[in-house]
């Protein structure tokens, strides 16, 4: 049961993480800073999953990456693009709709 829950959670996280990144990157951040920000909010993200995701979003033009070489260690900072913001609006609408459906069905189940 735990294994099954874990595997479904992984699938759910895949989409959710994209939305989360688009929301978080309203402010510029680099990978590890994002991992810590998520952790502070109680959300664990696999570090080796975040970077490939950022790369895919960058390729699709939803986030913009920029290397910062002036600091002690080179870091790649990401921020959401205009296309990313539009996508975020669409994704949030889907998210809210799904949330509404679940709540509605749960309410009906309670009264049944």
């Amino acid at each position, binding site marked *: 049961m735990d294994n099954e829950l874990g595997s479904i959670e992984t699938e759910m996280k895949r989409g959710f993480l994209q939305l989360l990144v688009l929301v978080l990157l309203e402010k510029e951040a680099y*990978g*590890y800073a994002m991992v810590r920000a998520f952790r502070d909010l109680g959300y664990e993200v696999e570090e*080796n*999953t975040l*970077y490939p995701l950022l*790369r895919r979003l960058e390729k699709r033009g939803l986030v913009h990456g920029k290397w910062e070489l002036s600091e002690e260690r080179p870091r790649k900072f990401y921020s959401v693009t205009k296309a990313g913001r539009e996508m975020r609006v669409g994704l949030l609408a889907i998210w809210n709709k799904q949330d509404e459906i679940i709540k509605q069905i749960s309410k009906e189940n309670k009264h049944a």
Partner: protein
Amino acid sequence: MHKNLETYIEEIGHFLTGRREREEILSEIRSHLLERAEQETSPVDEAALGKVIAAYGSPRHVAEKYLDGRPVIAPAYQRHLFRYASLLFAVHFAFVMFSVVFKRSFTIFPFLYVPDLSSILFDAIMYLPMAFLADFGAVALVLYFITRSGREIKLPWPKFASDLDELQEPEAKTLSARIWNMVEAVIMVALSAWAFRIYARFHTLFVAHSDSGKFQPLFMPAPGRTLSLVVLIMLAAGTATLLIKMFLSSRRLACWVDIAADSIALVLIGVVLRQQRGNLFAVDVPARLVTWVHVSLTVILLVVALFVAIDLVVKVVRLGRGRLAR
């Protein structure tokens, strides 16, 4: 410079494609791992780095996350790999048959080259497994390019055709199947014993009843002996295969036994095809009949070789799929 970190980064790089992209990915991972290790201990030491690296995942696992969604062959086309490879192999096999019968080579540059295999029939048999591998590779290449193009292409396939990739593992043997196997084995043992007895008596398996009431060899001594030995080896191999499989519970080992038996059969068919030239008969046979027998024998053996080759491919695929699944 942290040796363990650089080795790890290099191993990830080994699995990634595109030089520029690879370097950027590796720089980002390096930067992340160093910062992560710094959280453990500052200044960073090898022990902290080792811990962080272990938590980050195996190099192949990490690299695959970047390659996710970029399969060599798109899942929708993967079943076509075996479909078209088997179809292409059938066409290839037909060209091999034409080459043997019509004594000429065939070239469709750069897709197909079948040399004139009529004078070296043994090579025609040896050519077939390599032809299959070449066909498999050619189909894989085409599907790779289709995948890379990103276009939605509906590849045709006739509805009546069966698929190599739909091969199912045989069900566990029922009692009736076991009894039938035993009957088969008894028949094969009796047949082999009878063949060995004839060979011991006449030094050939092919004898004809003459007008004088005596038995005389049907074929000339040399080809007659070779053909007889080939048949004896085939009978012995067939009997041994049945007996071994009766006592084997592992399907994988049974597959290996079939592969060995098919390989022996292909080699023996090659030997027969090589031998059947020249004056074959030791008895008076009309010239037209001799030609007819030669052509018929060649065609029959090539068809048998086709079925044996198909069975060999099926068994190799089944074994390969089992290994991949494990």
